[in-house]
């Protein structure tokens, strides 16, 4: 079976858990920006965690199915419609051949996810179906979806669907306008001034509209770097380093002004010093933020980061149980 894209929405791409092992060649991990929400959608339609979903941004697509199937929409709160009638988000939706899925106005957050039984079955590129538009690989022909695209869908679970047909409130993610993000300080934070560290970890930062799958830029009081003699090869600005690999989730502060959190489609390296790194358990939060969201970066230790990671895995295990 297949799904036909009638209108594409603002930025709709095929994503899965990501593409790992090619970062050394500058090819990013990709994958759904909010992995937890994508997992919920897959679970509702009887998919595995590895199946590909559609990641939508602000404005949803409209889609027609050519066969009877089930779908689910999770992530940012939005009105979901079937043939114009509003249906439940975070619930399994039954579609008949010819039905049209469309969306109303987003009520918070930025990214929402559509899973279909069997998953979006585009060919894998380097072990993943995630779209990497700059490199023209993955997804539908290496790009975001466009009107008229017909997306292949894999074989679903049929009638063998999980009991969970709606996500209970306590398992749904929050889309708050204020978030605490846990970070591990390090990398090049020794180059920050005392004021820089204090501002970064104690002040509030506001997400700007300059935010996408590559990175998210925050406004705030600035976090200055020490004005020292720069090492050979690094570049003249105190925020420059000899070009190095960038950890996914690392936070660079070019010119000491606006922190940029690198996300799943980020460049794999470059010449800006980073103050620290978002812990793996909190990376999904950036797929839930809308511009204007107030963020505090809270330093934690490796032990705390690993405990948070285990907690997140336990939550995911509940979803898949």
């Amino acid at each position, binding site marked *: 079976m297949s799904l036909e894209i009638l209108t594409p929405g603002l930025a709709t791409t095929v994503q899965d858990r990501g593409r790992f092992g090619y970062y*050394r060649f500058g090819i990013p991990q990709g994958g759904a920006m909010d992995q937890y929400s994508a997992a919920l959608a897959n679970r509702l339609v009887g998919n595995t965690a590895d199946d590909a979903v559609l990641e939508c941004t602000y404005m949803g697509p409209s889609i027609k199915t050519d066969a009877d199937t089930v779908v689910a929409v999770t992530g940012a709160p939005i009105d979901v419609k079937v043939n114009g009638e509003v249906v439940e988000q975070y619930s399994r939706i039954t579609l008949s051949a010819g039905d049209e899925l469309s969306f109303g106005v987003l009520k918070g957050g930025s990214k929402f996810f559509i899973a279909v039984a069997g998953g979006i079955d585009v060919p894998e590129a380097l072990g993943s179906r995630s779209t990497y538009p700059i490199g023209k690989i993955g997804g539908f022909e290496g790009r975001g979806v466009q009107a008229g695209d017909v997306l292949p869908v894999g074989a679903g679970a049929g009638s063998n669907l999980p009991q969970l047909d709606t996500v209970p409130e306590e398992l749904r993610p929050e889309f708050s306008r204020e978030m605490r993000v846990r970070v591990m300080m390090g990398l090049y934070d020794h180059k920050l001034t005392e004021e820089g560290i204090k501002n970064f970890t104690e002040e509030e930062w506001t997400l700007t509209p300059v935010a996408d799958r590559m990175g998210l830029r925050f406004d705030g009081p600035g976090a200055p770097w020490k004005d020292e003699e720069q090492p050979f090869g690094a*570049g003249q600005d105190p925020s420059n380093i000899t070009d190095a690999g960038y950890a996914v989730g690392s936070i660079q502060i070019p010119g000491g002004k606006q922190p940029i959190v690198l996300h799943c489609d980020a460049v794999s390296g470059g010449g800006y010093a980073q103050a620290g790194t978002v812990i*793996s358990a909190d990376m999904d939060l950036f797929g839930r933020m809308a511009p204007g969201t107030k963020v505090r970066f809270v330093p934690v230790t490796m032990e705390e980061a690993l405990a948070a990671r285990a907690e997140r895995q336990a939550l995911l295990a509940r979803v898949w149980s």
Partner: protein
Amino acid sequence: MTLPEKARYSWGGDEFLLVEIAPDMSLEANFVANSIATGLEAQALDGIVDICPANASLLVRFNPDVLDHGVLKSTVEQLEADVRQATVQELQTRVIEVPVWYNDPYTTETGERFRKGYHQQPEGTDLDYAAAVNGLANAEEFIQRHHETPWLVSMVGFVAGLPFLFQLTPRERQLEVPKYLSPRTDTPPLTIGIGGCFTAHYSVRGAGGYQMLGITPTPIYDPTQSLPDFEDFMVLFRTGDIVKYRPVDEAEYREIEAEVAAGTYKYKQAPVTFTLAEALEDPDGYNSTLLEALNVA
């Protein structure tokens, strides 16, 4: 030059380990980073997700559920000690020839669109500026200095397959050029640029802050894997590759462009052993030796 006695280790969250050999760029630091990466790769530890050698550092991605972070750190520390104690530091690699149309109309036209507010010296071209800041007479002299020595791929990354290259010549003779004051929003694909002490090949069209020197007709990223050099993988360069730029004129650029379009183009390349001590001791003599390999290829 002397490296810090021990690398600086720092965690990039719970999935990344940064190993900074030195804050400044040098052939020695790059060699240590690359050798640790090769050694770690050979150990094939469960839980290593990616090993990314960079210019003077190394970034390792790991899965902390499979590989204890303490074990990873002590493994890399041991490798670092081994690499530093090795008596012969050598790298099995290849030298590869890249044709460049220097001072071409494509990058010139793009440069003209990004002068005021972007460039240090809005009058003149990127090449004029690059020559001036290096105390050279003109663009021709800069071009000569750019292609007369080989360059070492010291890092691959930023976007798909983009190489950073370090000039194989003593520091006092290395070309060094500031990046644009504010990055361009456009760069032609396959532009050859220079920023700081690094040359870069823009693998895809997009933003960029390096001064533009010319353009090559030969792809370095081929997601369709249609050219023979990309049969095994879509990315051409590996860290440790040695590049010799060969200036070409428009006629030859067009010829090679046609070969690429026909799917028949093959890079001229030859295997070489790169020995760090020899490269540092007699840079000019050693460079000639490296480049001889290409002549017999």
